[in-house]
């Protein structure tokens, strides 16, 4: 992985207006690198959903993006409350988001399903009261 480009972003909590800035930056950088439009779009959507989740549910966190000639790996780590039931959370339409989040246009229960849909691989490590780390891979 010597030739990997690594990008790191601090995601600030409770700043809904700025949520998505990191994903926007990554999208721009991938375009500049000449990554295929399809891969760029998949990364942008999956990371944006993840970034929104970190702001809504987890008091922010850190996103690391590793770009190699074969894949783009996104690691979203937070020290939020953890996900009590990952299987449920993966179901389309299941949401624990409060009403105020819904009034902002999120909380439809599509976040995690969308992240899975747009990535080639996704894994979730979560521990209640400790935090969640989601790793997503999009192949070039």
């Amino acid at each position: 992985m010597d030739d990997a480009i690594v990008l790191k972003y601090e995601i600030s909590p409770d700043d809904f207006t700025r949520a998505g800035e990191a994903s926007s930056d990554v999208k721009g950088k991938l375009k500049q690198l000449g990554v295929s439009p399809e891969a760029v779009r998949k990364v942008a959507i999956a990371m944006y959903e993840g970034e929104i989740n970190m702001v809504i549910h987890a008091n922010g966190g850190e996103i690391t993006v590793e770009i190699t000639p074969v894949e783009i790996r996104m690691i979203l780590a937070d020290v939020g409350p953890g996900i009590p039931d990952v299987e449920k959370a993966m179901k389309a339409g299941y949401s624990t988001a409060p009403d105020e989040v819904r009034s902002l246009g999120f909380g439809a229960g599509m976040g995690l399903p969308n992240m899975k849909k747009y990535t080639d691989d996704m894994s979730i490590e979560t521990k209640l009261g400790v935090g969640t780390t989601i790793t997503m891979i999009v192949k070039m």
Partner: protein
Amino acid sequence: MTARDVQAILGARVLTGEEFLDREVRSACGSDMMSDVLAFSKDHSVLLTGLCNPQVIRTAEMLDIVCLVFVRGKKPDDTIVQMAKDRDIIVMETGHRMFSSCGMLYKAGLGGGAI
């Protein structure tokens, strides 16, 4: 059709992106829930929404949406319009409601795209 056709059909007012009105649009999506919109990923799309916040622009950005239409007379503030301008996204507003706006575009031949 083009974004200009969308504007004419909906009698919409263009808030930014006048110079891009000849861009082609091939499908449309109407929703106030951005995650539902993100589940829909089609090229050259129009997004119709009644939600008025910066995340609408971010969602459009991630999906490479060509044209955003705010329905039922919703008026995005200057910050939102500027964000769209910075990203070369066309923004329009129409007084028609969501259902009517979608119906008018559908009737004119704009589909939702294959699922």
